[in-house]
């Protein structure tokens, strides 16, 4: 009995001592951290330049805590041979430890993208502080450092703005692609599939865009604008897809949620449509040793704007419009497929469709897939259904006659 009590007392003392001796290591107070919301990677002569966009919390807080003394974010850059070292080197510039868990965007400069991404991104995916819910973006025609330095009106933290805008534009306009880090890395590992990343460009005067004056004008000096989708082959940026082509890509990949477009009326002018639902399927087939792909696209749209004279109450007009829409979409899809084929980059995952259809035949084609892809016979079948006409039936142009 006494033995047991002694042992218990001893263990208790040891436990409490352990508590005090170990203290609380790994403890980081909130005011010891610089929260990095945006990160940028650029190619430089002596390695890689890492830029971090860190928040000044005092400036960002909702209630009037802002002192006006500094900007809501600060951009810091450091150059070193590897990504991880450069990131650590940033700590010589920042007054607090750079904390990357809340990263929103990772911007990659175009030069670096063209040079090749595979080795650069490994450091980012390996570090345990990085989550995987941030987007990858390519800075089109400029450096990541430049992009991250632009201050944005309405949204105090530019990286946040980039994050939200990308989500929005994906949802309502469709020519952008949301790529998170784990998607990118898993697709990079797949030798058959090629990657795409959205491009972001700075429209306007970058110099002035970096200052606070950019926020205090109703028409800012510089704006961050998403445009185009970059085609990657083997981890290197090789080409840019235009707006229509990007939309085509999203159609094929079944990424379109809601977008707008127009059809040319039989008499000339345009007729605007709003796509409310789109569903695409890819089917592969191997015929006589040759792979074939059929892309079926089903689109439901509403008529959003009528600029020509056409009587919408007549059934055959609606059918005609649907036919025109199908032709147009076919054109768009074919143009992006051809562009990809020209670059020998299978960005759509057609290879996977062929593998699903005929794994044995796929084994033979696997190594030389880019060649096969370039000559691939792709059939595109589009079915457009016009659902609603909005709140008026015929436009004034039609009724006025």
């Amino acid at each position: 009995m006494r033995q047991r009590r002694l042992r218990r007392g001893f263990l208790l003392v040891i436990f409490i001592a352990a508590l005090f001796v170990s203290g609380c290591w790994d403890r980081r107070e909130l005011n010891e951290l610089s929260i990095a919301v945006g990160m940028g990677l650029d190619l430089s002569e002596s390695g890689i330049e890492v830029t971090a966009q860190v928040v000044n919390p005092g400036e960002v807080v909702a209630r009037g805590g802002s002192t006006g003394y500094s900007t809501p974010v600060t951009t810091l850059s450091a150059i070193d041979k590897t990504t991880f070292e450069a990131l650590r080197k940033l700590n010589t510039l920042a007054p607090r430890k750079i904390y990357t868990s809340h990263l929103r965007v990772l911007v990659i400069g175009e030069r670096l993208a063209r040079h090749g991404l595979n080795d650069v991104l490994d450091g980012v995916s390996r570090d345990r502080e990085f989550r995987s819910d941030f987007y990858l973006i390519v800075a089109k025609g400029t450096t990541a450092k430049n992009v991250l330095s632009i201050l944005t009106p309405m949204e105090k933290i530019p990286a946040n703005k980039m994050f939200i805008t990308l989500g929005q534009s994906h949802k309502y306009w469709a020519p952008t692609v949301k790529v998170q880090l784990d998607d990118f890395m898993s697709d990079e590992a797949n030798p058959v599939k090629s990657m795409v990343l959205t491009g972001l460009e700075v429209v306007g005067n970058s110099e002035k865009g970096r200052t606070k004056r950019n926020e205090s004008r109703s028409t800012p000096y510089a704006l961050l604008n998403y445009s185009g989708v970059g085609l990657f082959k083997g981890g290197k940026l090789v080409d840019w897809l235009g707006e229509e082509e990007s939309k085509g890509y999203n159609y094929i990949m079944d990424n379109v949620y809601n977008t707008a477009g127009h059809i040319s009326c039989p008499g000339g002018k345009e007729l605007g449509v709003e796509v409310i639902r789109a569903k695409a399927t890819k089917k592969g087939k191997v015929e006589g040793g040759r792979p074939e792909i059929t892309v079926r696209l089903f689109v439901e749209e509403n008529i959003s704007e009528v600029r020509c004279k056409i009587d919408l109450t007549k059934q055959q007009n609606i059918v005609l419009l649907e036919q025109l829409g199908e032709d147009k979409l076919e054109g768009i899809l074919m143009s992006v497929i051809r562009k990809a084929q020209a670059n020998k980059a299978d960005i759509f995952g057609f290879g996977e469709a062929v593998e699903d259809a005929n794994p044995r035949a796929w084994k033979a084609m696997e190594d030389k897939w880019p060649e096969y892809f370039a000559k691939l016979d792709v059939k595109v079948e589009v079915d457009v259904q016009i659902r609603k006409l909005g709140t008026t039936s015929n436009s004034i142009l039609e009724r006025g006659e």
Partner: protein
Amino acid sequence: MNGSLDSRLDENIAAVKNEFGSSKDLATEMVSVGPGQLVRVSLIYMRGLIDAASLQDRIRTPLLTSVRVKSDDRDFDPVTIVRSELEAAGGWSRIDCIPDISQAILSGMTVIIIDGVTEGMAVDTKGGQERAVEEPSTQSVVRGPREGFTESAATNLALIRKRIKTPDLRVESRVIGTLTRTSVDLLFIQGIAKAAVVEEIRSRLNRIKIDGILESGNIEELIQDNTVTVFPTIYNSERPDVVAAGLLEGRVAILIDGTPFVLLAPALFVQFFQSAEDYYQRADFASLIRILRYICFFISLLAPSFYVAITTFHQELIPSPLLLSLAAQREGIPFPAFLEAAVMEIIFEILREAGVRLPKTVGQAVSIVGALVIGQAAVEAGLVSPGMVIVVSITAIANFVIPAFNMGISIRIIRFLLMMCAAAFGLFGVTIGLIAMVQHLCSLRSMGVPYMSPMGPFNLDDQKDTILRLPLSKLLARPRFISANRIRGHHDSPRPK
């Protein structure tokens, strides 16, 4: 000598006075009866302990009127006449030694000694000031009886008897405490309470050897299971309906003279989260409120620990906008989060304790002043962050939701331990702390019954009354571990056919 009465009255009175050290409140009245008023009778009582009306009606009046009238008889035997008068007036008991006389006087009786007789008589004239039956201050309900126990064991027993009208309700009385001689009653319903439990409590009460019992808390400490724990293992209540309900479930009640708090044993963890009102309001409402109580239990226990752990170790768990807001709040605060939390919690405990002791007029002001102004001033002085003030206030308020005050105390203590775990080891530490606490709880027993039943040893039947309160038609079985007889009643559907 050695305590027995002398035949001379004056010797006896002197002996009694000596026993009491000539206390000023010991009254010795002299009355003369008999032919020619030659026989002296002495009434000895404690002034504050007797009921004056009773003394008058049952002793003085008979003595001074009837006895005198009858004393004109030649064969006056004072003893017989006095005895018969007292008997007509309400009864008497024999008393013949000094220690017994002292006990009788201290119990509120009046002792009558006649000159020349070596036997005394004691009449029960118990009285004294007693509080009226009023609403219990600590456990009030919106709907339900407003009677609360008082300090008199007789009144309290009556309040329970009024509610349980069966002869199976047994009352076993004993006196505990050599100097206070407090009357302690053991109540249980024969046939419902487990005989083993009753026997266990009986033996524990009998083992108590102490000079004074003043409150039920003393008894509670002396009979509770011998484990080192912060959690209460015996329930107490000021409400007769709660005690009656406990008795009906098969529990044992312990009434202690001098305190309105009655003990109920065995007690289970879930009992401390039940309130009498749960059974008087609708079942659905009661269930939701119970769920709220359990949520508040966790809030009160864990809120500061979570806050400290997450902002110090696991910032990646916080959504980004919230993180920025918190980071902005902590700008310029000189102390680490744990110190902030500890200091704020201690200040709240200080305010709470002070609030208990302040005179009523000042009390209101201080509570408002304390909570809001001090918190606000501390924030503006840059000593604590606003987020911390909110966390600490919510914690304190959630503590009051728990109906049993003694469980609230336990939670406050554990909260500090968990905060230390959180500060040292983050969420990992909180988890370890919680596991340790749960393991400790599951190892507790109350009078042999596992403390965490019906959740510990899981019992599906009894879940009907733990977190939810199912309608009475479904609650017709008594808790398995507590009672010997589980069938409560039958209930066909009350709906009209």
